[in-house]
C-alpha cells in the first residue's frame, strides 16, 4: 500500500524538524565549545594562577595586619614614620619616583606596531613586574600606547628604536614568563623574522620616575 501524500508530507516535516533541531544543537555546541572548551591543561593553568595570586593576596593581608598592630602599639612619632613608609610604598607602586632593583631588559629592533607594544606591556605586567619602563618612559596606571608602526608613543612620547623594555622583578621569573613557548616573544620572532630580540637579566636596573607635561592626576 502506498503512503498518502499527507503522510509523506508529515514525514518530511518531521525530518525537517529533526534537521532544524540538529542545526540548533550544533550551533549551541560550537558556541559552547568556543566559550567554555577549556582543556585540562588550561584548567590546571588557571588553578595555578589562582594559587599564586592567593599567595600574594595572603602576603598583603599579613602586611596590612602587621601595619595595624604597629599603628596600635607604636608611639606617636613612629606612627608618622609608618605613614611616611606607606606613602613611599605607594609612590613606588604608582611609578612617580625613580626606582631600582633587579630585573630584565628586553630590546627589540623591529618596526613594532602599537598593539605589539601594548601586548608586550600586558605580558610583562602579567609576568609579575613591579616597575616597568618603555624607551625610558615609566609605565603608570594610565599609560596609553599609541602611534603607528615603527613610531610608537608611550605616555604621549615617541619611543626611539630599538624599543627597550625594562622591568624590575625576580629576573628568572620574568625571563621564563616572557620567553615561554607560544608567548609574545616567540610570536614577535615569527612576525618580524628580521627582528633582533634580546632578553637579558640584570642585577640592578634604574627606572626613571613618570614625568609628563600633564601631571598625573588621580580621579576624585
Amino acid at each position: 500500500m502506498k503512503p498518502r501524500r499527507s503522510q509523506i508530507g508529515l514525514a518530511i516535516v518531521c525530518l525537517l524538524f529533526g534537521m532544524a533541531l540538529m542545526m540548533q544543537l550544533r550551533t549551541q555546541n560550537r558556541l559552547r565549545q568556543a566559550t567554555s572548551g577549556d582543556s585540562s591543561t588550561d584548567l590546571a593553568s588557571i588553578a595555578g594562577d589562582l594559587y599564586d595570586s592567593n599567595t600574594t593576596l595572603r602576603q598583603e593581608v599579613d602586611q596590612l595586619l602587621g601595619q595595624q598592630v604597629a599603628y596600635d602599639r607604636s608611639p606617636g612619632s613612629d606612627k608618622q614614620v609608618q605613614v611616611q613608609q606607606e606613602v613611599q610604598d605607594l609612590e613606588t607602586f604608582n611609578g612617580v619616583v625613580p626606582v631600582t632593583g633587579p630585573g630584565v631588559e628586553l630590546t627589540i629592533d623591529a618596526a613594532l606596531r602599537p598593539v605589539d607594544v601594548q601586548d608586550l606591556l600586558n605580558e610583562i605586567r602579567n609576568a609579575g613586574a613591579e616597575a616597568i619602563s618603555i624607551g625610558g618612559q615609566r609605565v603608570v596606571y594610565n599609560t596609553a600606547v599609541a602611534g603607528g608602526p615603527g613610531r610608537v608613543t608611550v605616555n604621549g612620547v615617541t619611543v626611539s628604536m630599538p624599543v627597550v623594555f625594562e622591568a624590575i622583578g625576580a629576573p628568572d621569573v620574568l625571563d621564563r614568563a616572557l620567553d615561554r613557548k607560544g608567548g609574545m616573544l616567540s610570536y614577535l620572532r615569527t612576525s618580524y623574522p628580521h627582528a633582533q630580540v634580546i632578553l637579558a637579566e640584570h642585577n640592578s636596573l634604574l627606572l626613571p620616575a613618570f614625568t609628563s607635561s600633564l601631571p598625573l592626576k588621580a580621579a576624585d
Partner: protein
Amino acid sequence: MRLSWLHRGSFTLGFLTQPTMLAAPGWPDRRAIAGILHRPATRLREQEAKRTLALTVLGLALGVFLVAQWQSPPASTADDPASRDAAIHRTIDRLETEQVQLKKQISDLRAKTTPEQQQITASRSASADLGEMLAEQRALAGTVAVDGTGVEILLDDSTVQQLLPSDDPDNYIVHEFQIRDIVNLLWGAGASAISVNGERFVNSTSVYCVGSTILINDTRTSPPYHILAIGDTAGLQKALDDGNSLRDLKTRSQVYGLVLKVVQAGPLTIPAFDGSVEMKHTDIAATTGQPG
C-alpha cells in the same frame, strides 16, 4: 575534538537523508509498524490512522535519536579526563572562594587603617601635607573607590542564534585583547579611572586569557563585560566614535554581531583595587643614584 564532532554531524545527516529510509517503496510494511505500536495486525480499517501515527512516532523517535546522538559526545568522555577536569574545577572553585575572602579581608583592613592614619596625619606634630600625600597616592594606586562622571561600555559575545558550518566561532566571542584595546583607548582619551566587571585597572593590571577564560587582576571574568571609565564624557565618547579607533572590533561588531556599545553616560562609581601593592624587589632610588 571539534573535527570529530563535525564528522559525526555529517554522518548523522547523511544517514537521515538516505532515501530508502523514508521513501515509500522501501518502507517497512504494516507489520513492522504494528510491531512498533504493539497492536494486532488484523485491525485493517485503522491502517491509515496507524500509519500516520506511526510516522509521527517515528519522527519523534528520530528527533529523540538526534538529541541522543548530539548529546552523547560529552557523555562519552565521562571517563578519566572528565573526572580529572571535575577535580580541577573543584580546586578552581575552592581557590576562587578563597580569593574572594582574601580580597574582602584586604578591603576591610585598608578601610580600618584609614581613620587611624587620618588621626596620625592630623596630629600637631605631623607634617602638614602627609595626609594629603597619602590620600593622593592611594587614589593613584586605585586602592580607594572613586565617584565621578564617565561612560559605561558594554562588550558581549555575539547574539546570533545560528552559525554556518563555515563560520569560525572565534569571531563571535569576546577576546581579551579587545578589552585591552578599549582600555588603552580610554586611557589615551584621558580617563582617570577604569574598571571592567568590577576589577579596577591599576599599574599592575594585566588582561590575559587561558583557554577561553579571561583573567583580569588574576580574577576569572566572563561576558558580558561592563567597562566603566571616569573622565570627560564627551571626550571619551568622541574617542570611541572615531572611525580610526577599534577598527577590528567595530568590524566584528558589524559583521558577526559582537555587542559593543556605550550603554550609559553619567555618574559612575568605580570600585577599589583589592589586590596587592606590595613591592618585593623594588626600592626607591636615591635621587643622585646611577644605573648599576
